[in-house]
């Protein structure tokens, strides 16, 4: 049975697309047939992060409008044959999304795929609502700062009240906290909220902490999901997150300040 995961946050720029790309790749590398959909119609980014921007012919909106089949629009990843990307349309806006259209595409994907990731746009409007409406699980990406935490809280309220599961009285969406751009040294200085602060404010189970890392930006610019960067802390954090999501017991890392100047220098690449 396919599971639909929405990667959401409310606030922009917290790392939703980076997370979607990394986790989709992680699940595919584990052998699960995975699709990742860009819901950010008009501000298409996922194709860049996945490095398939030159291979986009048809997009999500074309499929919704019946102008292309799903198979024509899905882009198979060159690094992992279990991973497919459904890009957003860059020339349209969120009004092109319809609930029936989204449902049709997701229903069709569910027949073939084991995991379907929905990369939500920022905000709580149309695009974000459709991205989360049919979800089974939600990855709430939050930065350790008050504005991001509050927006995530707002998004959690919407997940709990406006999703299909909520409206039809089914078991609620399973929500997980992903704390990204975390810097233990800045937490120690008091310049950033700690993991415990965020966990307490949101009262959510923590799926993982992704440390602030230069490698995220480098990977994005290169069009390589950061999880493929063997030497990156952020990549390792995403691997842990995939393992935890799949039910493995993995201790949390990257929460405490590293002891010793040298080990810190070597590991924070």
């Amino acid at each position, binding site marked *: 049975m396919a599971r639909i995961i929405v990667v959401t946050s409310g606030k922009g720029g917290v790392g939703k697309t980076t997370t979607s790309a990394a986790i989709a790749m992680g699940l595919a590398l584990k052998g699960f047939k995975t699709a990742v959909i860009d819901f950010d119609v008009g501000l298409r980014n996922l194709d860049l992060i996945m490095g398939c921007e030159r291979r986009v012919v048809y997009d999500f909106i074309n499929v919704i409008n019946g102008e292309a089949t799903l198979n024509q629009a899905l882009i198979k990843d060159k690094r992992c044959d279990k991973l497919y990307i459904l890009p957003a349309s860059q020339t349209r806006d969120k009004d092109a999304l319809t609930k029936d259209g989204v449902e049709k595409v997701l229903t069709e994907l569910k027949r073939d795929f084991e995991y379907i990731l929905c990369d939500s746009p920022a905000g709580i409007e149309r695009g974000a609502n459709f991205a989360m409406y049919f979800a089974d699980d939600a990855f709430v990406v939050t930065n350790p700062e008050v504005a991001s935490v*509050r927006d995530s*809280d*707002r998004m*959690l*309220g*919407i997940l709990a009240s406006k999703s299909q599961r909520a409206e039809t009285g089914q078991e609620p969406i399973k929500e997980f906290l992903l704390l990204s751009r975390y810097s233990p040294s800045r937490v120690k200085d008091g310049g950033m909220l700690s993991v415990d602060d965020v966990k307490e*404010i949101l009262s959510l189970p923590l799926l993982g902490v992704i440390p602030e890392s230069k490698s995220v930006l480098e990977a994005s610019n290169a069009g390589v999901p950061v999880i493929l960067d063997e030497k990156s802390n952020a990549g390792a954090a995403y691997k842990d997150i995939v393992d935890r999501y799949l039910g493995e017991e993995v201790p949390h890392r990257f929460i405490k300040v590293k002891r010793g100047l040298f080990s810190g220098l070597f590991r924070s690449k």
Partner: protein
Amino acid sequence: MPIDTQDLLVTESVLEFKSRAINVSTLILFSPQLDDIQEKLQQKIAQAPDFFRNSPLLINLAYLLTHSQSIDITKLILLLRELEFLPIGVQGGSKSQHQIAIAAGVPVHTMPVKKITQPDSVQKPVIKKIEVKLITQPVRSGQRIYAQGDLIILAQVSAGAEVMAEGNIHIYASLRGRALAGVQGDISRRIFCADLQAELVSIAGNYRLNDSLDNSLSKQNVQVFLQDQALIIEAL
């Protein structure tokens, strides 16, 4: 030259029918005993003879009918006329009672009759059902909860959320949003919570903002109530 339509109508027609509602005394009977009725009526007339003389009267038989008590309509009408009442109608009786009334020259009023209760019967007290709302999930930023009675919340109330109740509010976790109890003005209502970090607390419109809350009270059970129009926040 303006035409006087009133004149026109009067000169052209001899009569016209119009529907009018009039106020008539209704005689509601709770007993079929003619002797008792006569006695009671005579007592009434003795109190104000001019008021009752030749006064039109509607006879209501609904109570007798629902309690299956029969009454001699012919004799009743004769009795009323003897006492100088002018019966102008019956209502709420059986079919045969109505036929007898018509035979005696008294018309039947078939308008729906309200259920008649004896005047001395005690009215049942109306018990107002008080709704108690129970919330088990966190109340997130941007959500609003309203309860007409008491509101019980087992999870946290996030910053930017708003919980309101006409009754009391109980929160068995952190309160970081707004809580307003007694929103319909009941000053006896209270707010109870396990960790007060609220943006705002209010009882019947008397509010306090986070700025004026005592930080030493966080992480413990507190109650908020009104005393002499002052909002009191104290540890439990």
